[in-house]
């Protein structure tokens, strides 16, 4: 298997073939997650730093489990209680980490471009676990893996990304990847939760939910951060839900076997009606399961690439 990338910073760096490699590798690792003993020695002796400079439970846990199931050692570094809180610059933190010679750094950071900033300064693999509003490639890849399990191909499918697109790294990465895989993506949000030039995101834009949801094969709801209201972007959550909450009634306009996704954590009753989140066509928990497999695949591809290079 030929994996050409030192880092995974965004899906935009990946070719169609790269994505297929990730999808196949993830599918092959999924079997491990179903075993009674969920561990293989593939990455034994490898060190993975989980550097989450922004609060995260789901993504961090997912990477931690993924690494451990491949027998890598993980080291968690949070912003709170770390030297970053003592005023150390990101550059110095990263150079310090580099000096400890890890095999991969998984980074979550509030600044767009932070993963690239780090990748340029370290020799080990860097995986972007979310940088600001910019990119969240592992989320996009796990969304694709989840949908491919249902449909086998995204060609001809229409997927609606609904919610706070402006501040969403998930929307930016997923829109790009799903489009690359042949799906048609629509974006829907109030104008205040879209970038001014939303057309730059390569997808048609809707401001009202009803026309946007017409005939779609899947709806991906985005989490609404409560601070958007404080920033004057929304009147309040109730008003938001009135216009954009995904409800059973609204979902009737979609294709008959429409699927529902959400990157989590969910605000029940805000982005998505509570019953819909638990309904049979919800893929929300499948996304979590795919997440572990996709992250195992990426850790494997990025970390073993170097060993293969050295052997060659």
């Amino acid at each position, binding site marked *: 298997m030929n994996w050409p990338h030192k880092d995974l910073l965004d899906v935009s760096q990946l070719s169609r073939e790269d994505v297929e490699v990730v999808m196949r590798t993830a599918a092959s690792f999924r079997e491990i997650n179903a075993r009674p003993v969920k561990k293989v020695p593939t990455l034994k002796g490898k060190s993975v730093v989980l550097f989450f400079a922004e609060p995260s439970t789901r993504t961090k846990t997912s990477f931690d489990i993924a690494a451990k199931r491949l027998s890598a050692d993980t080291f968690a570094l949070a912003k709170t209680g770390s030297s970053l809180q003592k005023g150390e610059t990101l550059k110095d933190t990263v150079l310090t980490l580099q000096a400890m010679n890890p095999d991969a750094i998984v980074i979550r950071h509030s600044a767009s471009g932070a993963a690239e900033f780090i990748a340029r300064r370290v020799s080990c693999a860097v995986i972007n676990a979310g940088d*600001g509003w910019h990119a969240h490639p592992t989320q996009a890849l796990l969304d694709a893996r989840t949908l491919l399990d249902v449909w086998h191909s995204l060609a001809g499918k229409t997927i609606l990304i609904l919610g706070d697109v402006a501040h969403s790294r998930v929307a930016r990465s997923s829109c790009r990847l799903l489009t690359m895989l042949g799906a048609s993506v629509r974006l829907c949000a109030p104008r205040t939760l879209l970038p001014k030039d939303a057309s730059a995101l390569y997808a048609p834009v809707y401001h009202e939910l009803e026309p946007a949801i017409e005939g779609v094969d899947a709806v991906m709801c985005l989490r609404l951060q409560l601070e958007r209201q404080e920033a004057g972007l929304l009147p309040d959550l109730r008003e938001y839900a009135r216009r954009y909450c995904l409800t059973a009634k609204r979902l009737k306009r979609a294709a008959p076997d429409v699927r529902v996704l959400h990157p989590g954590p969910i605000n029940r009753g805000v982005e998505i009606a509570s019953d819909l989140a638990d309904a049979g066509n919800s893929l929300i928990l499948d996304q979590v399961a795919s997440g572990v497999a996709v992250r195992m695949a990426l850790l494997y591809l990025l970390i073993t690439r170097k060993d293969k290079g050295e052997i060659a």
Partner: protein
Amino acid sequence: MTTPELAVRNVRLADRDGAWDLFVAAGRVLELCAHDPAAAPEARTLDGRGLLLLPGLTDAHAHLREPGQEWKEDIASGLAAAAAGGFVNVMCMANTSPVNDNASITKHMLRRAEAVWPKGPRLFPIGALTIGLAGRELAPMAELRQAGCVAFSNDGEPVADTEIFRRALEYAADLGPVIDHCEDPYMAKGSGANEGALSARLGLRGQPDVAEALQVARDILLAEYLGAPVHLAHVSCRRSVELIADAKRRGASVTAETCPHYLLMTEDALFGYDTMAKVNPPLRTDDDRLALLEALRTGVIDILATDHAPHAAHEKETPFEEAKNGISGLDTALASLWSLVRQGSLTASDIVERLAWRPAAIFNLPVNRFAPGDPADFLLFDPEESWVVTPEALRSKGKNTPLLGQSLTGRVMLTAVNGQIVHALDPAAGA
């Protein structure tokens, strides 16, 4: 005829053909006349080797960081960069620490300049418009002027309260020009990227061009209403240009500047989150760039200024959103602008007008038009000399320029203030 002390022989001029000789006496222009190879004046002679003789440049907008932020720049290194860039007059902004809002800071700056560069370049401090740049109380502008300030500005901290700004313009009208950094302080908050397709893709908070243009419009209206002049700093976009053009047609007392980086680069420089290209106002689109070039040619925009904003390396080696705004520009302004002359977008005469004569006229500073008696402020420019912008090649402490690593064609070989050489690449010329 007075005996010349210095002769600069065999030089070319921006606006006239042929070879010329410049004669200097007592720090002033004695005569500029056709080159005579046979003449053998008694004076000390500089061989111009056919280089371009330009009047010394004036920068109406520089941040020299002293007092208070000497790790970024100080008056010695800032004026060294100015001399190397061909600048003979440098106006330094008031956002020092402490702020230049009282005579003791102004006098301190001038004493430092006199101590470190007694021959020049000349320093002209800009006083704060409001105390501490806080936008609440007027600074003592008469006191500042008496101490040596030549203009007033809240640069970097635009006055949000229009009532305060109105009173500041009114009060300053009899004391000196007001330079305004046009930025709506609410709309523009916390961004170093133009709002548009690029900021949408990079996931950066965008600063819309209207955040600038709104304040430009406000300032124009106030200037016309009060009959008080205002100078608009670092104009970056077409919307502002159009407002200024309209205002000038009506005869409003408005002048404006733009900076080399807005003419040479666009927001595309931000790809890869290059913090060196992070500047406020942000780099805009190519359409804006072309509008600014046209405005410079027609005089809608009066002058070029560097907005020299030096920072230490660690202040730029951060994720984009955390990086400081600003580009170090004194060393490279003329050389980088020369690419526009080379490609025919500007003429050498445009450069002289916008970077030397007009800024000196707006702010009433010494100026050399090569008439007898003018201060002998000049530079020799080699339009063919190629050099690479390395950190070592920059005299400024601030190595923060997107030009780093690039090759420029055109270089200031020598700078003189009052006939005294303050910069010479060839040591034989004797700086």
